[in-house]
């Protein structure tokens, strides 16, 4: 039984796609139904992948939009971010083994501020200000890097980064060959 039939699943860009280096543009004039449709489809795409966060540029849309679901307590509870900003971070940093749907099957430890204060518009266009900590802080900082064209592998040594890109390219070639 094809269980994914009902979902709107978009293609996720992978490295070294140059669009992943683009700086995303602010959403002007508030959150519209078109933005919500994009967020719905991004959410489906993220769950199907599966992943816990996705920035619009990862599906080729150059807008400052992010969807996320940390699935805490093994329960789905999605979050949506339009024009997110980090207002403040604390000095303490924490390492976390990050991964990325645009750099599949590569994981490495990245050090980031342990807490950050966010401001964003939610799915309904309401302004929210809140502190993020734990996995939430890790994930939102990772996703917001995407909006600046930065990937987590950009924090690694040049050698490690090149190896990661080569590995993704090779895996993609293999799966394309399999499909034919």
């Amino acid at each position, binding site marked *: 039984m094809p*269980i994914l039939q009902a*979902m709107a699943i978009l293609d996720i860009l992978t490295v070294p796609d140059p669009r992943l280096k683009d700086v995303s543009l602010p959403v002007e004039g508030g959150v519209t*139904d078109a933005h919500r449709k994009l967020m719905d489809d991004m*959410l489906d795409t993220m769950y*199907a992948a*599966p992943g816990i966060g996705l920035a619009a540029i990862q599906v080729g849309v150059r807008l400052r939009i992010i969807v996320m679901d940390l699935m805490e307590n*093994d*329960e*789905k*509870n999605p979050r949506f971010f339009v024009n997110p900003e980090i207002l403040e971070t604390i000095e303490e940093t924490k390492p976390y083994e990050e991964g990325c749907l645009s750099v599949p099957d590569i994981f490495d430890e990245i050090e980031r501020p342990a807490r950050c204060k966010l401001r964003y518009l939610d799915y309904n266009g309401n302004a929210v200000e809140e502190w993020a900590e734990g996995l939430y802080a890790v994930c939102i900082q990772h996703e917001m890097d995407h909006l600046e064209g930065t990937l987590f592998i950009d924090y690694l040594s040049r050698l490690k980064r090149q190896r990661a890109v080569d590995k993704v390219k090779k895996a993609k070639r293999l799966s394309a060959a399999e499909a034919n």
Partner: protein
Amino acid sequence: MGSPDFSTVTLEALRATEHEIVCVYSQPPRPAGRGKADRRTPVHLAAEAAHLPVRTPRTLKKQSEQDAFAALNVDLAIVVAYGLILPPPILNAPRLGCVNLHASLLPRWRGAAPIQRAIMAGDAVSGIQAMQMDAGLDTGDILYTEETPLTPDDTAGTLHDRLASLGANMLPTVISQLANGTATPTKQSEHGITYASKLGPEDQKIDWTRSAKDVDAQIRGLSPFPAARFDWTPPDANTPIRIKPLMSSYERGDGRPGEVLDDNLLVACGEGAVRITRLQRPGKGPMDAADFLRGTAIHRGQIFQ
């Protein structure tokens, strides 16, 4: 598969059909505190009473749990308020897939708290739907729908019970349609999607500057659980007590938001006024307003925060 009372009603309905129930999945028992036995979920208890096999894995992400489920070789899984994520190997294991009973008219109120969110938003109609589950958040095709209008007397509690019984009634039809191949899966609309995000403490606190219609909807939408709340400092006390209103209506009324306008719990809002007709204070059970006021007089002019 299920955990709260909703699933107990569904399980009873399933037992009344000619179908064999191979296994019941429920969330693991919760620790009940010192010296007490862990608390099993209602559906767990109901399944045991009916001598049905019960499994309570903590997660279905593990390969071993997925294999154990696949080995049951079931035709169909019915999922009601289960609360664990079903990964694709689980969704794909039953011959006819997994069918979820979802307590809203999709695509409105996808997610964790559809019953409460529908009332809190002042929806005129709600319903229960049988949905063919996929890996998304309540994105699957709809197999069957029962609608019910919402009334000014509805709370999350009354709507829950009504939807549970509508769901139980439609379940035999849904199952036979799937079994004999006459089911008509219908795609959800791409328009009108909303998300019923989990309820947090910020949803419970009453903001008296909102309209009376909104405050009334909030009180009823969160009743009986987790309940809306506000603080009131009795004239002879220094510390506020936390009050949980459980039932209300709204009417005309003018005053400063939070101001009590008569001796029968009419409270001014940003626009109009809310009359609280059932409520609870710490350490006491829920009471009708008249009984509450006999023990705790709240006069006109008091301010709720």
